[in-house]
Structure formats: structure tokens, C-alpha cells
């Protein structure tokens, strides 16, 4: 079949060669084929079926005879057939072969007289691939059991190469989109942390390891704290091949840390409050038998009880033993009542022996019942010694002040009685001689007129006129002093009836004097005042108007009242001679007159009475006039609130 040189070439090939006849007998094989398949160096001619080989495809299925490349080559199905065949040899085990079969037409008539099969043995490559696959599987299984996220990225393409299932568990998101586009990595990371996380990843690319903590919000809304670590993986050549890293859920640790921090802050705050609180914070408890002791006391208690806090607690000293003997029963009773009702314990008591002597303390505590039948009061004690002393001082000052007020009041009352008795005397004693003067001059006039000449009669008339004026003066003075008598009793007074009664009172005079008197009161008006005082004021104003219009042919007087800015304004207007406004303030003063007696009679008391009566009711009185223009007098009083009616 081949000469000696050819044979050497054939045997030097790495590929195996087998020659088959039409009966599928192996009639020759080169060195490579013999070695791979364990055929030995001897003559061949053995049928392949007798070799005991099991042939199957890469998936492990047995290849039926008519599917094998050599059979197909001998049976004229195509020029060259090929395939991958796994041969199980008794001596050399399983061999993975890539096979090509070519029919041999030695006579040139198109009929195959045999076939040449060439193959390459890739068993060892196949085994290496298998081993790698198994190793990766192992790695994946291992990774999926890890609690932390594990990832590997190809830094050149920025493609995610691997990520374990922890991503889906911690992030609550599918991992698939990350394989498409690694920037989805930032999905869910807290907006405030995104920049920092991205910067950390970049830094890793540049220089190696990083570690960072950040927040991430899961699609279900839960906030998760993540600690991420990244690092480069280098190839044998020292160049970076991969970026890899871990990420763990540190929410619990973070939360615990936050809680511990909050607790520490609260504790510190509480300690500071206790230290700076006024008085002494304390917990005082009584067991079921009523034995008391302190379980806690702030340092300030030393000044209040005379015992330092540590000793107080360590020795189990009872508060009741420190309280003043006279207050002990009261303190015990208030504690008992507080425990029974569950209400705050408030008590004031004395503690006799402290560094600064006896102190007066005030207790504020809330009781809490304990399971063993005892009660604990949590609260504070305050030193009120100074406050007590100040209160006592104020009390004694008040007593002194009240005594002095009473003294002054009785002095004033005595003065007032003196004043009353004075006016009484004025009334009685001054009038008695007047009555004599008037009586006897009248008798002189009536019984002895024949003995008087005209001048004498004139003198007698003048004596009587002066006497009458003196009587008027005394009466007016008494009326003026009477206005002040007693405290005003202010109440609602209806304006309409008052004006009507005052108008009625002068009806005879207005009729006699042909005076046109008009009154005009807004309906429903009420003032806050005294009826008598208001009548007195309006009556005097009206009398005044009547007096000053005397001697005119067209005497006209208006009286009325209307509401004005929450007040009630009364007015009395006349068309008399009026007065110069320069004298406005003088006309309300007692004994001040703007007219001579022969013009208009009067004592100068009427308007003073008006002012006094109005001011007693907290009102105002004033006038508007001009000489020859008549005068209008106003009285303004507060309107009565509807509630006062």
C-alpha cells in the first residue's frame, strides 16, 4: 500500500489513520492510531465490531452503526464524512476523537473498495474544559450560598461578568439588567450617596481597594444600609484583569449603633438635667411595711437633707427620720394618701439638721406601685426656705400696710364726719341769724313803715335782699357739698325718662316765660351713671338756660341726647347772650360768674355742681359758645353695655 518512505511519513503524523475494507475490517493503522486506540504493533484485519469498542456522541448517546462516519463513507453517502466520536476502548479508556472518513475507489469505477479514516484525539483538551466547567459550577454554588453580594466586572468592557444571587435578595431587584448595562448598579442608591459611590468605584479603577457605606432603597420602600468593598484582580503578568468586590447589608448594625447613640445622648441629657435641676431629684421608696429609703438622689440633696447622696442610698436612710418631728406625722400621712390615690405627692415640711441649719422643703413626686407591694416616688425636693421667709415678710408688710390704710381711712372718715358736722352747723347756725335779720326787717317794714322815710324803707329793702342772697348762697353751697357725699353707685340709667322728668320739672317756668323748649332723645339710649346725679346736672343746665334767655322775645331752648362713639352725649342749647370761650374753664368753677348780678342773678355754684356731678359718673362736661351767639352745654357719659341693662 505504501513504500517504505511513505510509511515513515504516515507513522510520523500526529493524526491517527485507519484503513478499512468494505467489511469494516481494519486492514492497517499508522503509529498514532495504534497508540491512541491501543491496537498494538501486530498485523490487523480485525473487524471493528469485534474490538469491543462502545462508540457514542459527545452527549453520551450510542451512535448506531449506520450513523458512523466510516459506514457512511463506505455506503456512498457523500465524498467525505466527519463527526465527533467518543470511543470507549478496553485498554486506553475513553477517547474523544474528531473523525473524517474518505471512501477509497482503487479501481476508479466509482465503487468504494474501502475507506481511510483520519482522526485527531482531543481527549486531554476535552478533560481540561470539563474541569474548568466543574470549577465554575462549584464557584457559582459557593457564591450563591454567600450572604454578601459578590461581583466581578471586566474593567476594559465595563461588563458584569458575575454576580451572585445575594443581589436579588439584598437589593430586591433582578440582576439581569446589570449584565446589559452596568450603570443600573446605581439604581436604588440614595440620591445623596450616588455620587460618593460612583467616585469610590472610579478610584478603585485607578488605584485599588475601596470601602464605602451608603444607603439604598429597595423597590418595597425599605431603606438598607450597605457596606461595599471593591478590589482589582491581577493576572499572572501583573496586569489588572478583573474588578471584584463584596457588598453587605449593615442595616441592623447601623440601627443598633443609632439606637445606642440616641440612648447615650438621652442618658447624657438626663444627667445634665438632673445636675442642673433646681432642688434635688430623687427616688424614694417604701416597702409593703412602710419602711422608706432612697434608691436614687442627685448630689444637690446634701444641702437639702444634710446627708450626701451616696450615704443616703447606701445606708438606706428613711426620709421620715430626717424630717422635723412636728412635721413627721403630716409627711407620713401625705405619702400614704398619695400611694393610695396614685396622685402626686406634694408636701411642705422642715428638715432641722443641715449645714445651713433648718431648711423648709417642698416635695413634688409621682408614685409608682411596685410588684412587691411597695411604692416608689420619683420626683424632686426644692428648698423653699428663702421663699417662705420672703412670703412671711410680704405677709407682715401687708398686715402693716392694711393697718396703715385702716388708720388713714378712719382718719379720713373722721375728717369727713367733721366736714358733715361743719356743713350742718353752717346750715343751722348761719341761717338762724339770717332768719332774725329778715324777720325783724320784715316786721319793721310792715309794722313801723309810718316811722321810716323813703331812704329808710330803701335800706330795709336792701337788708332783706342781701339776706335772701345770703340764704341762696348757703343753700347752694350745701347742695354743692352734698353732691360729693358717699361713693357713686353707677348703673344703667335710661336717658329718655331722665330728660323727660327734667323737662317736666321746668314746665311751669317755660310756660310762664313763653320759652320754646324742644327735647329730642334718640330712643333706647342708656348711660352708665347715677340717676340723681344726671337729673341734678341736666336740671342745673336747664335752669341756667332759662335764666340766661330771660328778657328775650324769642326764648328757645333745646335739650337732647344721642349716641356718639360708644358714649352718650347730652346737650342743652339756649339762644341767650352766650359767653366768650376764653372764659370757658372758669365758668365751671365755684363762685365764678361772668355776669354782673343785676344782669343775671345767681350764686356761681350751678355749673360747679354740674361738673362735680358729671365727673363723679366718670363723664365730661363742656360748653360751646360765642358772645351773643347763645351757648350749648354738653354732658358726655359712657353708654351702658346691653349686659348692664
Amino acid at each position: 500500500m505504501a513504500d517504505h518512505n511513505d510509511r515513515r511519513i504516515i507513522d510520523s503524523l500526529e493524526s491517527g489513520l485507519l484503513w478499512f475494507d468494505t467489511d469494516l475490517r481494519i486492514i492497517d493503522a499508522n503509529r498514532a492510531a495504534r497508540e491512541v486506540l491501543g491496537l498494538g504493533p501486530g498485523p490487523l484485519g480485525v473487524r471493528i465490531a469485534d474490538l469491543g469498542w462502545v462508540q457514542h456522541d459527545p452527549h453520551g448517546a450510542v451512535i448506531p452503526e449506520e450513523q458512523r462516519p466510516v459506514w457512511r463513507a463506505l455506503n456512498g453517502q457523500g465524498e467525505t464524512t466527519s463527526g465527533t466520536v467518543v470511543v470507549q476502548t478496553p485498554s486506553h479508556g475513553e477517547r474523544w476523537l474528531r473523525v473524517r472518513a474518505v471512501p477509497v475507489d482503487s479501481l476508479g469505477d466509482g465503487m468504494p473498495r474501502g475507506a481511510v479514516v483520519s482522526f485527531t484525539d482531543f481527549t486531554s483538551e476535552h478533560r481540561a474544559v470539563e474541569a474548568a466547567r466543574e470549577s465554575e459550577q462549584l464557584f457559582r454554588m459557593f457564591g450563591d450560598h454567600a450572604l454578601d453580594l459578590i461581583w466581578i466586572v471586566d474593567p476594559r468592557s465595563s461588563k458584569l461578568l458575575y454576580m451572585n444571587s445575594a443581589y436579588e435578595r439584598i437589593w430586591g431587584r433582578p440582576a439581569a439588567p446589570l449584565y446589559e448595562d452596568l450603570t443600573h448598579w446605581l439604581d436604588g442608591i440614595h440620591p445623596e450617596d450616588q455620587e460618593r459611590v460612583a467616585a469610590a468605584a472610579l478610584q478603585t479603577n485607578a488605584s485599588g481597594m475601596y470601602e464605602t457605606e451608603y444607603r439604598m432603597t429597595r423597590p418595597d420602600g425599605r431603606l438598607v444600609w450597605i457596606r461595599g468593598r471593591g478590589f482589582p484582580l491581577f493576572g499572572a503578568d501583573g496586569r489588572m484583569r478583573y474588578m471584584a468586590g463584596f457588598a453587605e447589608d449593615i442595616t441592623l448594625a447601623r440601627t443598633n449603633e443609632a439606637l445606642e447613640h440616641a440612648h447615650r445622648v438621652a442618658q447624657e441629657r438626663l444627667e445634665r438635667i438632673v445636675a442642673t435641676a433646681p432642688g434635688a431629684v430623687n427616688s424614694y421608696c417604701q416597702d409593703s411595711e412602710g419602711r422608706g429609703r432612697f434608691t436614687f438622689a442627685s448630689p444637690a440633696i446634701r444641702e437639702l437633707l444634710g446627708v450626701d447622696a451616696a450615704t443616703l442610698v447606701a445606708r438606706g436612710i428613711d426620709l421620715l427620720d430626717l424630717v422635723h418631728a412636728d412635721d413627721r406625722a403630716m409627711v407620713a400621712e401625705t405619702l400614704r394618701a398619695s400611694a393610695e390615690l396614685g396622685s402626686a405627692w406634694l408636701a411642705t415640711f422642715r428638715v432641722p439638721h443641715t449645714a445651713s441649719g433648718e431648711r423648709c422643703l417642698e416635695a413634688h413626686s409621682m408614685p409608682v406601685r411596685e410588684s412587691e407591694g411597695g411604692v416608689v416616688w420619683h420626683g424632686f425636693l426644692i428648698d423653699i426656705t428663702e421663699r417662705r421667709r420672703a412670703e412671711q415678710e410680704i405677709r407682715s408688710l401687708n398686715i402693716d400696710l392694711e393697718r396703715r390704710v385702716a388708720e388713714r381711712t378712719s382718719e379720713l372718715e373722721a375728717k369727713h364726719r367733721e366736714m358733715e358736722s361743719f356743713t350742718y352747723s353752717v346750715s343751722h347756725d348761719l341761717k338762724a341769724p339770717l332768719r332774725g335779720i329778715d324777720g325783724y326787717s320784715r316786721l319793721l317794714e310792715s309794722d313801723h313803715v309810718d316811722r321810716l322815710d323813703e331812704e329808710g324803707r330803701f335800706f330795709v329793702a336792701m337788708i332783706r335782699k342781701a339776706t335772701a342772697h345770703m340764704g341762696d348762697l348757703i343753700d347752694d353751697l350745701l347742695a354743692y357739698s352734698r353732691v360729693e357725699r358717699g361713693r357713686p353707685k353707677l348703673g344703667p340709667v335710661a336717658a329718655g325718662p331722665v330728660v323727660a322728668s327734667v323737662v317736666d320739672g321746668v314746665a311751669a317756668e317755660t310756660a310762664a316765660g313763653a320759652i320754646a323748649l324742644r327735647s329730642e332723645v334718640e330712643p333706647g339710649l342708656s348711660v352708665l351713671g347715677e340717676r340723681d346725679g344726671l337729673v341734678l346736672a341736666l336740671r342745673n343746665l336747664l335752669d341756667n338756660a332759662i335764666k340766661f334767655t330771660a328778657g328775650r322775645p324769642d326764648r328757645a331752648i333745646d335739650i337732647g341726647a344721642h349716641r356718639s362713639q360708644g358714649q352718650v352725649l347730652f346737650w342743652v342749647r339756649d339762644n341767650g347772650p352766650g359767653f366768650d370761650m376764653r372764659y370757658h374753664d372758669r365758668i365751671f368753677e365755684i363762685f365764678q360768674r361772668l355776669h354782673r348780678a343785676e344782669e343775671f342773678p345767681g350764686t356761681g355754684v350751678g355749673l360747679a355742681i354740674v361738673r362735680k356731678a358729671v365727673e363723679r359718673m366718670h363723664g365730661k362736661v363742656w360748653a360751646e359758645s360765642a358772645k351773643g351767639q347763645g351757648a350749648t352745654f354738653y354732658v358726655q357719659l359712657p353708654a351702658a353695655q346691653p349686659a348692664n341693662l
Partner: protein
Amino acid sequence: MEDRRPILLVEDNPMDVDLTQRAFAKRHIVNVLEVARDGEEALDWIARWEAGHPLPVVILLDLKLPRVSGLEVLRQLKAHPECCRIPVVVLTTSREDGDVAAAYALGVNSYIVKPVEFEKFIDVAAQIDLYWCVLNQQAV
């Protein structure tokens, strides 16, 4: 029927006594005007009335009196089982509200303020005469 029993004037001012007498005379009042010059003297009359002296038709009483005040005289008169029936007219210069109220509280029958003018005083005398001596039906 005119009552001709006396009128008792309790008045300390002699000028007022004289003028009262003259005023009564001007009105032709014929009742005898008996005079007590102070409160004590006025109270002395009680014993005389108890002894059978005729009771006055009216007592004109000033309030401001030496020794015993007019109000005290009034109180004792009105507290007396017999004398309480004698009408008492307070005739005074005081128009103090307190005096008026006290006098009425003690049971005074009338309260008149003495006018300064003699004519008015004559009118008052006439009214007293008319009301107490002529028209009033006496209890005793």
C-alpha cells in the same frame, strides 16, 4: 272744731322763738305757745303731762338743741305710751338726708325746713295751724 289746746315749741334760739310767736300772732293763731328752750326742758314736759297738764295739740321740734338733741327728744316721746300720740313736727334748718331719714324712722309726723324769709315762715305757721289744729282728728 278748732282745738284750743297749747302748742309746744322746742327751740333754743330766742330770736326764733320770738319770730315764731309773732308769725303765729300775724296769722291770728290763738293756741297758747308753750316753749322748751332745750331738749332737757322738752323732756321735763312728759312728767307734767303725766301729772294731768293738758297734752299739746302739736309739738314743733328743732333738731339742733343744747344738752339733749331733738332726735333724742323725738325718740323718747315716741317711746312713751301716752306721749307717742302727740303729733310732732320737726321744724329745722337742716335738710340733711340723714336727719330726715332718722326723724321719719323715729315716727315723726312731719318734717319742715325753716325758711329764711319771714313771709314764708308765716305761711308755714299758717299751714301748721290749719293742718294740726283745725283739720287733724286728734288721737287723744
